[in-house]
């Protein structure tokens, strides 16, 4: 299905890079008109960031860009020019939402600060999502997603053990907490606008948003006064609980054993039923206390078997287990994702028939079909003519004077 659930909602979308466009993508995927206003001089960093089709650079060849911008329209305007800015204001007048993820003050410098925008569109929903918020002593700190992991405690807590932090291997806050907290806030603002007729300003500090994503750790710290443990893959409530080496190169299986009965079942599967009665492992507390010996025994078993086989046998016995999947496995071999039609291919003039993850749910029993991402500036003339009513002569004049860049 190509859902039209958000038909009639229009964005003037100035977001770029990772987190911002990921949050507006969900709107275009559900039928909103998301007008991505970009620059061909200062390109969106994911357009230049790759990966690229055939490993060949091109502003329309980045798979990363494609995955964050499905179904949007691209309008190229020189925001530094007076005419360019005037056109942006004309688009804003006809939009419900204006969105950006620039650093603090950048929108003001473009003449697009909240007050300026509200002056022309009193009921605008204005989304900003700078790293640390709009103002304050660290507002000017520069960061990428991993910096957000660092200053929130997420990096410290993603660790192999006490004092040995590693941090998430991706810019994780950019890919879950921040885009979707932002999207949720915009959806809430849209409902409030329907109730009251009023707009709203959303100042999403990506740090504050990410702290909510690890909010249980903060409440635990507040209740106990203690720093939450750097627990690695281990659990304070279960053992075995970890990622175990399997047969083959860099092959791993995650296993969690939640009860004595499950442990007895696993011992039987390992061909060592007597382990269930071994006093070192007879209770959860005992297994946690003897975790090192326990993990050694489990590894002896898993390292002789294929990861998929370990996972399958344990699952059959009712024990949660899964191969640690990499991207290739997910795309080529994961029967569950394939069985639910998770992957889709979308035609694109420069990317060819490339691969996309579907929105991670089915709606009324169907997949949300994605529309391809826009070429740079593909919709400039279309939007200015259909939405703003500019005629061909005017468009040509603007083009000649270099406003479309």
């Amino acid at each position, binding site marked *: 299905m190509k859902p039209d*659930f958000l038909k009639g909602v229009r964005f003037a979308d100035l977001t770029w890079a990772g987190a911002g466009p990921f949050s507006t993508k969900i709107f275009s995927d559900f039928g909103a008109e998301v007008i991505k206003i970009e620059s061909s001089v200062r390109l969106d960093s994911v357009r230049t960031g790759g*990966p690229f089709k055939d*490993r060949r650079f091109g502003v329309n060849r980045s798979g990363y860009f494609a995955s964050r911008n499905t179904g949007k329209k691209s309008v190229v305007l020189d925001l530094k020019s007076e005419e360019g800015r005037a056109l942006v204001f004309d688009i804003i007048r006809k939009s419900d939402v204006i969105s950006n993820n620039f650093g603090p003050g950048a929108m003001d410098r473009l003449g697009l600060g909240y007050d300026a925008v509200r002056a022309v569109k009193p009921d605008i929903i204005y989304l900003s999502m700078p790293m640390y918020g709009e103002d304050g002593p660290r507002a000017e700190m520069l960061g990428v997603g991993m910096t957000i992991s660092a200053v929130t405690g997420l990096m410290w807590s993603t660790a192999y053990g006490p004092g040995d932090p590693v941090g998430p291997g991706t810019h994780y806050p*950019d890919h879950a907490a921040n885009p979707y907290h932002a999207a949720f806030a915009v959806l809430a603002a849209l409902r409030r606008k329907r109730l009251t007729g009023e707009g709203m300003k959303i100042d999403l500090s990506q740090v504050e*948003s990410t702290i909510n994503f690890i909010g249980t750790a903060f409440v635990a710290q507040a209740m106990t006064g203690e720093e939450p443990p750097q627990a690695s893959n281990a659990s304070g409530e279960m053992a075995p*609980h970890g990622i175990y080496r399997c047969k083959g190169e860099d092959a791993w299986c995650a*296993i*969690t054993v939640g009860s004595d009965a499950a442990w007895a079942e696993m011992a039987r599967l390992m061909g060592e039923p007597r382990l269930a009665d071994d006093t070192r492992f007879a209770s959860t507390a005992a297994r946690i206390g003897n975790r090192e010996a326990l993990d050694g025994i489990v590894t002896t078993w898993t390292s002789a078997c294929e990861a998929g086989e370990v996972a399958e046998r344990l699952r059959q016995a009712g024990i949660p287990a899964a191969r640690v999947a990499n991207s290739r496995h997910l795309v080529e071999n994961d029967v569950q994702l394939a069985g639910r039609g998770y992957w889709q291919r979308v035609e694109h003039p420069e990317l060819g028939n490339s691969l996309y993850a579907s929105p991670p749910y089915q709606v009324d029993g169907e997949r949300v079909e994605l529309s391809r991402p826009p070429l740079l500036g593909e919709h400039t003339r279309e939007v200015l003519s259909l939405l703003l009513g500019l005629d061909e002569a005017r468009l040509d004049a603007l083009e000649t004077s270099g406003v479309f860049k």
Partner: protein
Amino acid sequence: MAALRKPKQPQPYDGMRILDLTHRYGVYAGKLFADLGAEVIRVEPPDGLPDRAALPNRDPRFAFLNANKKSIVLDFGDPRAEARIDALVSSAGAVFIERDGPLYDAIGRLRAANPRAVITAVSPYGMTGPLADAPASDLVLQAAGGIAWMSGRIEREPLALPFSQATMVGSIYAATVTAIALHHAEATGRGHLIDVSVQECIAHSLQNAIQVWDLEQRISIRGGEGTRDATEDIFPCRDGFVFLASPLAVGNSWKSLVAWMVEAGHPSGKIFSQERWSSREWRLTREAREEFRTAFTAFSTLFDKEEMARQAIARRIVMGPASRISEVIDDPQLAHRDFFTQVEMEDGALVRFPGAPFKLTPQVWATARAPALGEHNASVKELSS
């Protein structure tokens, strides 16, 4: 730090009732709605939804994820409860259900009771497919969805993310798609059924790993060798760790960093001024990573986190402290924004909670403590009718 009262301004989800029967992977979704004004009611069997049994009383996880919800008790096994369930469902805009919890197998009935409602079903692997009934856990779903693969050191096992991230990712997708479906359902009177797979949610959060495989046949892997600049990592300083990112492509971060070392007369400034550090390709190699780590650590360990943060801001270097949780609560920026809030527990004690994930003007966000089992039985009229 102030306890937030319910705002005087109208809240976004005023007048919206949501029944919440989640107990693990969907639990955070209801909190997001509740803090913006929805009446979110946990509908629980007499001994509570499974998360109450699994977690001790006043457990921080339960307290945070269920903040601001109500709780009523219903004996799902009792045939007399059926009319009450129907009445409740028909009073709701949305119903969250979850695998291994009540009413997950009663979707037809829920939809018949209220065709205008959005029914959101959260499950580890989705409602269909060969693993629809497979046992799961947070760690296992992080493995199955592909995020566990992405973290850790290359010589060690992959490292999952802490603090129940399968729950958080599953819940935030469930919340946003439910809000979208509600937008449509309220406008048209037609409800929707949403089938959220947590595995898919995780697989949707892998940065660009899927495209890297599809377009370049490379597998993104933990440790970042071959994909991450030598500078992009966590490094020790005098009192802990900092995270640095100074690849050549990121503004002036690299130039400023080297200039600082040179200015300080530190020998590492000379090392990083050598020609090979201007090669992007070389900077991706293991050799570059090792050389950078040694020389940068010799410099970074001279300073504490506070000083590093100050210098990072002044010199426009992409760098920040890798704070402990108990340090984040004293972060001067968060204090300036009055981010943390206080929630009054049943016994009157005030506990510090994270404030809103987004600062809204007008201020329409507020939270409150999680409910005791059945605390709101008397105030929900569909229960007595």
